[in-house]
């Protein structure tokens, strides 16, 4: 935005002493600034250009949350509130085992306490929490800054796509795993003496 500050006595040929040169320099500087476009960001009328990975607000992708409580426990100022209960899923097959899963009842972040450290986002094992650049959620009452999961979920569409990988970077683990060729079927051990047609491996039927 502005040039780095260079003291006057370091600029070659610049006036350093005497009354008049300094005064003239002041006039010249202000006149030059007058001729240039101003730096003012007209914020409410023009949206600011935020840098990537701006920490505006924390968005919740509810489907990914397993109520594991890691975020709530790691939060340095304890501003995450989680309530959940267990639900029993009947067995899907006859005679199968019933399973249990966690159901998220409440997920709230108190943004009057949050210090935007991002530890909850770092620690979430299932990518349920994301940084959103959205910052226009000021309230008139500090108590209104406690946002429940519905509101946190509304910010999810504002989460930017992750930045592209650096050229030459290693493939992400998920993609590497998905694109690996399927494991080949095991080839049967060749029979030592008799020529037998290839087929499924005999279950050690051959005493050989």
């Amino acid at each position, binding site marked *: 935005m502005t040039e780095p500050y260079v003291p006057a006595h370091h600029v070659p040929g610049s006036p350093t002493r005497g009354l008049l040169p300094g005064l003239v320099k002041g*006039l010249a500087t202000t006149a030059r600034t007058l001729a240039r476009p*101003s730096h003012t960001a*007209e914020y409410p009328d023009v949206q600011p250009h935020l840098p990537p990975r701006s920490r505006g607000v924390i968005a919740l992708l509810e489907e990914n949350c397993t109520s594991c409580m890691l975020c709530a426990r790691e939060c340095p100022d304890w501003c995450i509130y989680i309530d959940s209960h267990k639900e029993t899923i009947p067995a899907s097959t006859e005679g199968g085992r019933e399973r249990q899963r966690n159901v998220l009842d409440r997920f709230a972040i108190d943004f009057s306490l949050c210090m935007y450290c991002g530890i909850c986002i770092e620690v979430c094992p299932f990518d349920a929490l994301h940084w959103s650049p959205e910052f226009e959620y000021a309230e008139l009452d500090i108590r209104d800054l406690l946002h429940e999961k519905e509101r946190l979920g509304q910010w999810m569409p504002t989460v930017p796509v992750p930045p592209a990988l650096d050229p030459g970077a290693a493939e992400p683990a998920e993609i590497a795993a998905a694109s690996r060729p399927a494991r080949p079927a095991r080839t049967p051990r060749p029979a030592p003496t008799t020529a037998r047609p290839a087929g499924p491996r005999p279950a050690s039927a051959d005493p050989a």
Partner: protein
Amino acid sequence: MSPALEVVLRTVGVLAAFLVLPLVVGQAEHKVMAHMQGRLGPMYAGGFHGWAQLVADGVKFLQKEDITPAAADRAVFKLAPAVALVPYLVALAVIPLSPGVVAADVDAGVLFVLAVSAVGILGTLMAGWASASKYALLGGLRAAAQLLSYELPIVLAAASVALAAGSVSLTAIAGAWQPSWLLWQLPGALCFLVAAVAELQRPPFDMPVADAEIVFGPYTEYTGLRFAFFLLSEYAGIVVMSLLFTVLFLGGWQGPFSDVLGPLWTLLKAAAVAVVIIWLRVAWPRLREDQLQRLAWLYLVPLALAQLALTGVWVVFTA
């Protein structure tokens, strides 16, 4: 046209100019200063680039409580803003925009304007004295000292042009102006401009209201409309001094098509001078009180005297 109607028309004309021009200068200050600092300045009031910012400020000041300090000299305290403001209105009445466009063509116009504008500073002094506040008193006394120091160079510089023109009538001085005056009256013009800025208590000569040292000087105790009057008187002062400088040193209405565009030329030149006064405020820091006195007595007064001597010699040898 009946004389009574003419008086009313002229009065209304001066009053309109007095109400509009200071606001124009004030708005110009907002915008020019902002852009010189890389900002935009007021952008919302009135819609288009904040043109109504000062009107909005006036409405705000109108709604404020009018407070008089308990220990203040009430009558003087309440009168002071009027004493600061009215002289500039009177001065504006006698400054010609062109030979025909002048509310009251006074013969000794130069003397009249200088005397009247010096009365305006009396308002500052009254405010400082009557406020019963140490900051106001300090500021008022600084203003008085400043007036005493800078009235001399301003009068000497004006006397130089009056001598060159052979008249103390503003109309006659601007009429006698030649482009060569720009050169040989230059020291006097610089002297006049510096002293005028000092008389207006504008930065870099705003020690009477130096907010870092004495809060807001004589205006510390003022609120609401009376405070607004002091601010208005500052801008009215810029208008009067710019017009006076234009008429004395820049030839007023002289320029191409001056018989038609005369008043416009005067206003244009005065606007340029006003922008210069604003520019000085943005670019330069405030002087110290002793530096102010040193500048006046060691540089400006000798310079003005030398200009006066030069003009005297010139007039004697050419006339």
